[in-house]
């Protein structure tokens, strides 16, 4: 599913972010990537959704090289990859429904299907009864649930979560982790990056320190 072969990434001669990474994540796996802040977790995820390119090495998803994708092909990769961030990245002035519907609008889904799918995915995060509320009126935990709903609405091949519980209290964090595990149980590959080892439950753990992998 995900393969990184001899991947190096640096942002300059003295700013090496990832060093000789070799990694294989199988379809349907739940993988925790852990390490201190600045260890390279975010860079690793960025390589997987085409936000960054490796300085050398190869990144493959489902056998397709994505490190050499043209700029014009990256939007189509991102429609197959859901991403969740620590800071949610929601549009505050819009409703829950509008935020979750964005990926469907982008991929040209008909309006009737958008309504059905948004309702369905909001049911899984238990926010379907509040879909007309502005996201700014939600708690941090609820906002992250909206972000997760938006990330999975297109039935992605994989879900990348970059410190998704970093801004949440323990209870809300665990709730988000449970939702992601539920999504994984339905077959979606989940890569969960966190510096908080206490969160780690069942699943494979990959540790990154100073840009190197210690599995």
């Amino acid at each position, binding site marked *: 599913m995900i393969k990184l072969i001899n991947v190096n990434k640096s942002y300059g001669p003295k700013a090496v972010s990832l060093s000789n990474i070799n990694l294989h994540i199988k379809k349907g796996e739940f993988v925790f990537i852990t390490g201190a802040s600045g260890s390279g977790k975010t860079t690793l995820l960025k390589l997987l*959704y085409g936000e960054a390119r490796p300085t050398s090495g190869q990144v493959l998803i489902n056998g397709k090289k994505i490190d050499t994708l043209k700029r014009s092909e990256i*939007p189509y990769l*991102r429609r197959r990859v859901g991403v969740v961030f620590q800071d949610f990245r*929601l*549009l*505050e002035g819009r409703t829950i429904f509008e935020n979750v519907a964005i*990926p469907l*609008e*982008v991929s040209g889904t008909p309006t009737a299907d958008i309504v059905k799918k948004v309702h369905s995915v909001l049911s899984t995060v238990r926010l379907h009864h509040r879909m007309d509320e502005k996201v700014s009126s939600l708690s941090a935990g609820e906002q992250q649930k909206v972000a997760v709903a938006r990330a999975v609405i297109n039935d992605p091949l994989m879900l990348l979560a970059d410190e998704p519980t970093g801004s949440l209290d323990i209870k809300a964090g665990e709730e988000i982790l449970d939702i992601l595990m539920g999504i994984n149980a339905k077959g979606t590959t989940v890569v969960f990056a966190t510096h908080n080892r206490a969160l780690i439950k069942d699943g494979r753990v990959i540790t990154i320190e100073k840009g190197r992998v210690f599995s």
Partner: protein
Amino acid sequence: MRPSYFINKALAGMRNALLVNLLAVVTIAVSLTLLGAFFVVIINAINLTERLGSRLEVVAYLKDNVSGEPLSSLEENIKSFPEVREIAYISKEEALASLKKGLADDPSVLDGIEGNPLPASLVIRLKDDFQNTGGIKSVTRKLRGISSVEDLQYGGELLERFSVLISVVKFGGAALGFGLILSTLLIVSNTIKLTIQTRMDEIEVMRLVGATPLFIKTPFFIEGVILGLTGAFFATLTIAALKWLIEYNLGSDLNLLFGADLDLLPYEAVVGLFCFGILFGLTGSILSFWRLSKARS
């Protein structure tokens, strides 16, 4: 995706950032008002110089012995020139009477002159299409070839002056207009850049979920066009109000001052304003995205 989707997105985007968009409309309207005022001045300047040029005439002074049949055939000959609209014959006597009338305040100037030294003449006026340097030159060349014509007067210096004036108005206006258009475009582009910058979060989210650059930019391009059109509308209103104010306060003095009717809101200026409004809005949006993407990379 249907065009209505992008139009709705553009309108929703403008509603969400109402204050910035209002500010953008005001800025664009002020810039376009200046440009529109320039259009009005330049269009009237061109009309004025053309009207002044149309008052040019060629006077052919005749030899003393030209009268009767030769005069009639000369008149017919000149009338047959394609450039000529009409001719008027002024006899020696009429010329002298006219001179005396002109010197009524100081008749002593003519005291030493015996008889009538003034020649008879033909005043030749040209058709509209030939009221220019080329037309005058063509007619004078033909007149010089006629033996009964002693001399010609066609305000050569005046004609040159008008030609220079028309050139100055046209080229100076073009240069000034180019500068004004460029600065207006920069102002509009910077204003639209502000409206885009307030929505960078939205652009970032769209990129993240797989929107193509064109999908992201199209609503902003439509917004640019709407801003440009709205700005042009208010600029036209402002110029119309100025026209009313000037005409109300100066009225017929204005025509006396310039010796001709002035059109303070010519349709060419209005059409130009709306065209430039659309062009500036669209180009401003494209430029803004280009500058923002350069700043990112």
